């Protein structure tokens, strides 16, 4: 078993090589068969799955199994930067999750994207994403994590803008990338600040790049040698990076833009793996954050606020993928809450459950949208339960789970609930219940819209490829299996409350989905919800005022600074203007000038000569 763990670095390299192979092959026109592309991709991901299963089993068998393989990469005086891999329970768990989701989504996307013109490009990006995601998870220190952090951001950008020919898609990709840049910059500042603190205050040169193998010691050292303000600043800078990647409140709008990408991309990157990287980073650095309770409070507040705002925004959306995107936001917020108020393990459970469920839901939505000729409006669907029974069943499993009624989502939510009660966080608890209610409401509203009632379209639904159904079913199976795997607190109180709230939500959704919208009767609330609390408007306002400001600066530059330069050149300009005016083109004028000059020189000579004569006479 230790063979898998010791050779785990190959799961970073092999997808990368496959991606490079496809890129070169596409560049020179060598790879044309889609089957070869699919088989190579699936083989590389299956390889990763085998190795991650082996490593995971090893970490289960040996408690506290830790393996660090590093090679020195950069050594500048006291600054040492190693690259390599770091395996412990957390990273083994995470790569298992990523490889399972990635394999299933790639099987799905092989058939989903088969008719697309840029099939090979899609798999180049997917493999590159796999490589960088594994690299991010297995990073032994903060500097390597930053490198792969950027790489997954790049892959996300490339895959959101996959159909870049459409203008709105490329704009959305750019917006997502720019908002991610804010977080990346903040993360880099945090890393540099902490490295600076270590370099200036400590003699331990090995710790400069913040390796995770002894993160608790380093955290204590940083906490010991900084003031509270600096420490909170470091934490907040790193936290902001995680928040941008995990789409938390001030920077959450990019995830909605990211829905412009293909559905498998949304399933893999923007619901299961990449957005979880922020939570993963916070869990990794939990020893650092937990030193100051204020930071944990901030994490909790950010998480619960995001959950509330995004759940509320999801209530009235009509685009299938946008509802799921807001839902993803909300669930990520609950993960933050779990990290801040409960424990990292519970957050990890919720992350796992949510990743599987949400990937499945996205895949189901992809099948539904394909059946409806790529129409994602839930109002145009309806009564699809008879045409797409497998989709309906798996979707129901997913939403039951995510609403906290049954299966994996029930387990993870139960854990959070129990821990909130134990920690006596009653405000968070009440807000958490509100979020649960809204989650159940909008998910079931979506279900009723899509699968119940009568058909609202008049064309024949074509049967989806059986592999699509198969991969979705495998996901559903995993969701059910997770229910048995995840620990249970056997909290009867939560079971009762959760079922009660969910039942009430389902009942409300059933009553209101087909009728006139409930919230529409209160225009302010409705507007707030449909416009997602106007975050996009605020950002537009900021960019617009920035544009105005730069226009103002442009005017200043043009008329003041350039004006000074132009004024300096005016002298030369005037002289040349005058000289060019002299060149009248008339022969007579030239003759006049020549005679004038001749006379002047002649007169000058005469004058000088007569003066000389005069003075010589005087003497």
């Amino acid at each position, binding site marked *: 078993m230790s063979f898998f763990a010791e050779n785990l670095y190959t799961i970073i390299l092999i997808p990368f090589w496959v991606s490079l192979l496809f890129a070169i092959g596409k560049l020179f026109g060598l790879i044309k068969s889609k089957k070869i592309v699919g088989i190579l991709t699936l083989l590389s991901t299956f390889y990763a799955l085998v190795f991650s299963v082996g490593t995971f089993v090893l970490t289960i068998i040996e408690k506290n199994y830790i393996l660090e393989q590093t090679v020195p990469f950069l050594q500048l005086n006291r600054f040492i930067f190693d690259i390599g891999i770091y395996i412990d329970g957390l990273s083994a768990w995470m790569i298992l999750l990523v490889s399972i989701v990635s394999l299933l989504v790639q099987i799905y996307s092989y058939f989903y994207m088969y008719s697309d013109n840029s099939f090979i490009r899609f798999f180049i990006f997917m493999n590159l994403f796999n490589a960088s995601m594994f690299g991010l998870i297995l990073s032994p220190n903060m500097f390597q994590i930053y490198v792969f952090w950027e790489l997954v951001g790049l892959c996300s950008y490339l895959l959101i803008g996959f159909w870049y020919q459409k203008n709105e898609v490329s704009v959305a990709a750019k917006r997502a990338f720019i908002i991610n840049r804010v977080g990346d910059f903040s993360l880099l500042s945090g890393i540099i600040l902490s490295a600076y603190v270590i370099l200036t205050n400590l003699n331990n040169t090995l710790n400069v790049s913040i390796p995770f193998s002894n993160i608790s010691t380093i955290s204590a050292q940083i906490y010991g040698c900084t003031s509270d303000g600096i420490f909170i600043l470091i934490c907040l800078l790193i936290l902001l990076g995680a928040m941008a990647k995990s789409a938390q409140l001030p920077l959450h709008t990019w995830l909605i833009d990211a829905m412009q990408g293909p559905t498998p991309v949304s399933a893999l990157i923007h619901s299961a793996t990449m957005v979880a990287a922020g939570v993963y980073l916070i869990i990794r650095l939990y020893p650092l954050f937990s030193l100051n309770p204020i930071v944990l409070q901030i994490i909790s507040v950010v998480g619960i606020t995001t959950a509330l705002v995004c759940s509320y925004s999801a209530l009235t959306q009509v685009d299938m993928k946008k509802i799921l995107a807001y839902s993803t936001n909300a669930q990520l917020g609950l993960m933050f809450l779990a990290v801040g108020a409960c424990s990292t393990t519970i957050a990890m459970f919720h992350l796992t459950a949510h990743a599987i469920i949400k990937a499945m839901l996205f895949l189901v939505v992809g099948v539904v949208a394909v059946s409806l000729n790529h129409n994602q409006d839930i109002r145009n669907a309806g009564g699809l339960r008879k045409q797409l029974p497998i989709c309906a069943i798996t979707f129901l499993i997913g939403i039951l789970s995510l609403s906290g009624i049954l299966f994996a989502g029930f387990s993870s939510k139960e854990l959070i609930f129990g821990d909130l009660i134990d920690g006596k966080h009653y405000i968070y608890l009440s807000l958490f219940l509100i979020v649960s209610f809204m989650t159940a409401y909008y998910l079931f509203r979506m279900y009723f819209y899509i699968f119940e009632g009568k058909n609202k379209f008049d064309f024949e639904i074509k049967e989806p490829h059986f592999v699509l159904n198969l991969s979705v079913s495998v996901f559903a199976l995993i969701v059910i299996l997770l229910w048995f795997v995840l620990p249970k607190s056997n909290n009867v109180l939560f079971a009762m409350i959760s079922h009660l709230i969910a039942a009430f939500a389902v009942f409300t959704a059933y009553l209101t989905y087909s009728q006139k919208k409930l919230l529409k009767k209160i225009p302010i609330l409705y507007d707030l919800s449909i416009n997602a609390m106007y975050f996009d408007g605020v950002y537009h306002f900021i960019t617009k005022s920035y544009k105005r400001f730069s226009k103002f600066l442009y005017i200043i530059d043009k008329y003041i600074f350039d004006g000074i330069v132009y004024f300096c050149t005016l002298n030369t300009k005037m002289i040349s203007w005058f000289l060019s005016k002299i060149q009248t083109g008339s022969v*007579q004028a030239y003759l*006049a000038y020549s005679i*004038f000059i*001749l*006379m002047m020189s002649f*007169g000058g000579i*005469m004058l000088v000569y*007569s003066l000389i*004569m005069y003075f010589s006479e005087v003497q």
Partner: protein
Amino acid sequence: MTETEIIKSITFYGFAIFSLLFAILSIISNNVVYSLLYALIVFFSAGGIFFSVGADYNAVVQIAIYGTAIPILFLFAIMFTSFKENKTVNLALSPRFFIAFFSSAFLFMVLWYSAKFAININENISKFFIPKLSQINSFELFSAISKGIYVNYQLAFILFAFMIFVVAVGISVLNIAKEKNRD
């Protein structure tokens, strides 16, 4: 002051005033044909002035070339080109007018002053400037000119003749080339 001197001075002043007056008139006049006529008078007066000095041969040449041949050339040019535009095109009232006027006035003053100055300052130059006019009889004149042209400046004479030939050929070539370009 003898009688001959008075006659000489009267002829000189008459021709001088005539030539100056008609030179100015020929510049001022609107009609090109009139200005050509005035120019003719100027050339004739110049011939008269030559005659008064005793350069009879030069006077004849002057009258023959400037008095007849060149005006006919001008007349042809006028006939070919500017018959209709005669009165519209006259003097230019541009800055160059004033430049030319003051430059010429200055030139005049400078030269006058220099001549005067040269006469006043030095006895030798003064002798050079104010010699006695020698009486030349016509035989001496013609023999001197013939000697000058055909003996002393023989090469220059041939050169001038050749130059005139070249010019005649050049003009015809220019014209033919232009005609070909037209086609």
